[in-house]
């Protein structure tokens, strides 16, 4: 049974474990050598002697029914083993209904039962799979499958669908409403106000590793190498869809080539690789093309948002309205909770937050790095900048003046409150005091310079995690948990936490991850993986220390005889009295000595449970604790972005030339990898600000730029030196004080850029991305 609920809402007090000699240090990532030498294997790279290759055939209507499929030419291609369509595919069970008692029920990216239906729900839905002996044969044959459709009327134009919206469902992951006072009335009478509409386009995660699955059935036992952020969800979901016991399914994802939310759900490629392996009775590799990723894996939904702010001449907010409409698919997807940060960031006297959705006949959206906040902050933080201009108050000053004591809509306490501090630090590092607030007042030759700021805010989640920790008599430690290394340095961080918790050197700790044979870990999402695992690792290490102490305590000759856990500290590869200086005689003993005397070759502790019933109860208890905790606390990572842009006066080209980000993310486990992750969020935010947009043909619902040549990610030349720093103070309500850093730094980036562009040019761009045509 997981004990993690007890860690969710402890009283506010200093963390139990102080940062030791390893936590916090800029340690090199433990898998750096594997990744720089080409030895790290990703999901399409596991050799099977009998491997076959699969390719998808996509529907090219947005809605309709398949009338005929002609696969004769495809089947005639040399090396083709099977063309699987809805006419000959084995039955898959439907996706389960979503239940908070079992989060794996959220795994399905869409409700479509692929190749088990003649219905088409979006342009790009897989309608056939070709399996062949070689990659080239599979893709060549896929182009020869001819499918005809009875096309049905489809709604694919988000802008045109604004008249048909409905309220978004609330809930733990959903987008609720928040209300305080009568914000519209307060807005109408506010001495100063802004009221504007902002739009953000669809975006795609575009991890450089395209989704790939290698699947192999042995009877009813299944092995799947899958590019996933949710090993446990994939396993449980496949068990349901293919009606086999989860215990017989092994999911392996040791290294994942980036995720950003795009590999959090189970999408068509995974299901159809498993299906194809069942049909062909051979190992199947389904390595999606980049186009197939765009067309079968959901992205970030487009949004239309209204932010209206009312204030007195003193800048204090009297009204804050943030409403949004986002697109969902007819067969799945969730509202973008664009107002989530707006409920907490500003001490407005009246507040109205609302989310609505409009259903399209499109591939359902999914979570993408900081769902809600990443695009919601563009609207909110742009509007705050607009208000600052109206009021002639510095935008940093306006934000700090409105920092709330308690969360304005619900009165919850903040676990940390450092917005003014991160702004002060950032302003100092950036040199903000030298800013002339007048637009078009600063230049670098031909280029107009602009400086902008925006606030980052993100509430990390916590999920139940199981780990096992084994301490061997030789002093080495093995940590096992099926967590995900998607680039965050997850194994490195858990090795550091374990080393300090047990008081052993970092190189004594080995961490195994990414395999469902290990104890189940939560998905890598919601910025929650590190803290969720830390809670479990600390608990397991605590049990080991207690057991070691119990063994020593039984031995009259041990210097630990008669001591209690509170008297000790773990250090130097063992347990030593906390009240005497390190290295003193008879102050304690090493684990090696304790185990040798007791005749034990190892101690092992496992948190969590293999037992399905107890695991379900544990998860339910955890969720109850988590929700209860969320009722009491606003626990958020925050930050202040400062950016400089240079805008070519003739062409409108915007270059980001300087960036300073100061964050409060609680305790930082690894100074090196944390800084990288914070920078990475800024980079992705710069992409959203200046280039990224998934273009849809509104007539057909087809994505027009499903490739990296046309969907513009930031490249080396687009990214200046990003100066990131953080307060590095533990959050008293979080495991080891860790808040989670995966998402916070993308939040506010696009607004900071757009605000800087306004400062540079005098042009306010309220529609992302800020392409040069919008400035001319």
């Amino acid at each position: 049974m997981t004990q993690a609920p007890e860690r969710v809402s402890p009283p506010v007090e200093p963390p139990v474990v102080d940062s030791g000699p390893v936590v916090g240090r800029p340690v090199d990532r433990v898998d750096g050598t594997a990744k720089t030498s080409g030895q790290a294997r990703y999901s399409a790279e596991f050799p099977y002697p009998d491997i076959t290759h699969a390719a998808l055939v996509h529907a090219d209507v947005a809605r309709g029914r398949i009338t005929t499929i002609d696969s004769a030419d495809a089947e005639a291609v040399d090396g083709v083993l099977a063309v699987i369509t809805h006419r000959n595919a084995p039955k898959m069970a439907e996706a389960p209904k979503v239940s908070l008692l079992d989060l794996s029920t959220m795994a399905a990216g869409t409700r479509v039962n692929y190749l088990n239906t003649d219905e088409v729900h979006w342009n790009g839905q897989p309608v056939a799979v070709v399996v062949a002996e070689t990659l080239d044969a599979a893709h060549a044959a896929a182009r020869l499958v001819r499918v005809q459709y009875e096309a049905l009327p489809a709604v694919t134009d988000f802008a045109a669908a604004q008249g048909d919206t409905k309220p978004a469902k609330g809930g733990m992951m959903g987008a609720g409403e928040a209300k305080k006072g009568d914000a519209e009335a307060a807005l109408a009478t506010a001495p100063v106000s802004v009221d504007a509409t902002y739009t953000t386009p669809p975006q795609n995660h575009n991890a450089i590793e395209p989704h790939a699955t290698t699947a192999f059935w042995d009877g009813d036992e299944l092995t799947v190498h899958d590019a996933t952020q949710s090993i446990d969800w994939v396993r449980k979901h496949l068990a349901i869809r293919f009606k086999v016991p989860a215990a017989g399914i092994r999911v392996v994802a040791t290294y994942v080539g980036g995720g950003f939310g795009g590999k959090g759900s189970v999408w068509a490629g995974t299901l159809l690789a498993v299906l194809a392996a069942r049909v062909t009775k051979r190992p199947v590799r389904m390595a999606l093309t980049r186009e197939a990723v765009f067309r079968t894996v959901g992205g970030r939904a487009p949004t239309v948002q209204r932010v209206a702010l009312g204030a007195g001449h003193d800048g204090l907010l009297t009204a804050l309205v943030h409403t949004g409409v986002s697109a969902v698919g007819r067969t799945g997807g969730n509202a973008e909770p664009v107002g989530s940060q707006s409920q907490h960031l500003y001490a407005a006297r009246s507040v109205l937050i609302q989310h609505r959705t409009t259903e399209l006949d499109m591939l359902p959206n999914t979570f993408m790095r900081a769902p809600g906040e990443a695009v919601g902050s563009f609207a909110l933080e742009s509007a705050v900048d607009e208000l600052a201009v109206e009021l002639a108050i510095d935008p940093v000053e306006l934000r700090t003046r409105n920092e709330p004591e308690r969360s304005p809509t619900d009165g919850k306490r903040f676990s940390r409150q450092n917005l003014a501090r991160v702004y002060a630090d950032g302003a100092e590092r950036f040199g903000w005091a030298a800013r002339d607030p007048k637009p078009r007042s600063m230049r670098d030759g031909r280029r107009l310079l602009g400086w902008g700021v925006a606030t980052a805010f993100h509430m990390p989640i916590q999920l139940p995690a199981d780990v096992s920790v084994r301490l061997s008599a030789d002093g080495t430690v093995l940590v096992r948990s099926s967590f995900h290394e998607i680039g965050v340095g997850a194994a490195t961080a858990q090795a550091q936490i374990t080393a300090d918790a047990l008081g052993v050197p970092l190189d004594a700790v080995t961490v195994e991850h990414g395999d469902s044979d290990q104890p189940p870990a939560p998905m890598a999402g919601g910025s929650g993986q590190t803290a969720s695992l830390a809670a479990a690792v600390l608990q397991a290490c605590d049990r080991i220390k207690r057991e070691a102490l119990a063994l020593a305590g039984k031995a009259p000759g041990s210097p630990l005889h008669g001591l209690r856990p509170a008297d000790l500290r773990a250090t130097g590869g063992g347990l030593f009295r906390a009240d005497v200086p390190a290295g003193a005689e008879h102050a304690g003993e090493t684990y090696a000595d304790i185990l040798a005397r007791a005749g034990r070759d190892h101690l092992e502790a496992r948190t969590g449970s293999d037992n399905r019933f107890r695991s379900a109860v544990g998860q339910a208890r955890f969720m109850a604790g988590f929700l209860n905790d969320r009722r009491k606390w606003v626990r958020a990572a925050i930050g202040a972005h400062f950016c400089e842009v240079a805008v070519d006066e003739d062409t409108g080209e915007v270059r980001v030339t300087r960036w300073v980000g100061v964050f409060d993310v609680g305790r930082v486990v690894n100074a090196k990898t944390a800084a990288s992750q914070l920078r990475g969020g800024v980079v992705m935010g710069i992409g959203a600000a200046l280039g990224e947009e998934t273009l849809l043909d509104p007539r057909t619902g087809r994505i027009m730029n499903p490739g990296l040549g046309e969907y513009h990610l930031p490249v080396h030349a687009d990214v200046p030196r990003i100066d990131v720093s953080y307060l590095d103070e533990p959050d008293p309500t979080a495991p080891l004080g860790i808040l989670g850093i995966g998402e916070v730094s993308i939040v506010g980036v696009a607004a900071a850029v757009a605000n800087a562009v306004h400062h540079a040019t005098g042009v306010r761009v309220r529609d992302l991305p800020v392409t040069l045509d919008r400035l001319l």
Partner: protein
Amino acid sequence: MIEVELRVNGTAHRVELDPRVSLLDALREQLGLTGTKKGCNQGACGACTVLVDGDRIAACLALAVQYGGREITTIEGVAHPLQRAFVRTDGLQCGYCTPGQICSALGMLAEADAGMPSAVTEHLAEPRVTLSSAEVRERMSGNLCRCGAYNGITDAIREVAGARPGVSS
């Protein structure tokens, strides 16, 4: 099928190739050298960068049958201080673009040594390229990193470039 001798990392492999097969797929699927990555298969991301006779190319846009007898170097054949530098500067996160970044950087350093200018080179007549941050970023812009490890990558390359004789940073 066409028989070709592919010389990879100093080893000759006689392989039978479908003429459609890209060098990238031949390396990954036929020779089992999966260190070279496939990110877009369109020459847009640089994850498949390998060195051919010392020059960097996108292996996804090269037909394998055209590379018989050429000296191909993949990440598995690279043993260079740059790899250590990437780890030290944390010029990677998920690691998927990393082999391409490293091979590309090695090709780029050779180009700079040979005096090849880039779009941001101010003085085209200078015999030696100064690998400023702007030069490195311009020259590496064919290699995408979605994790955003660009600062670390630039640092690693400049660190190694600065340590070599003949190239100033």
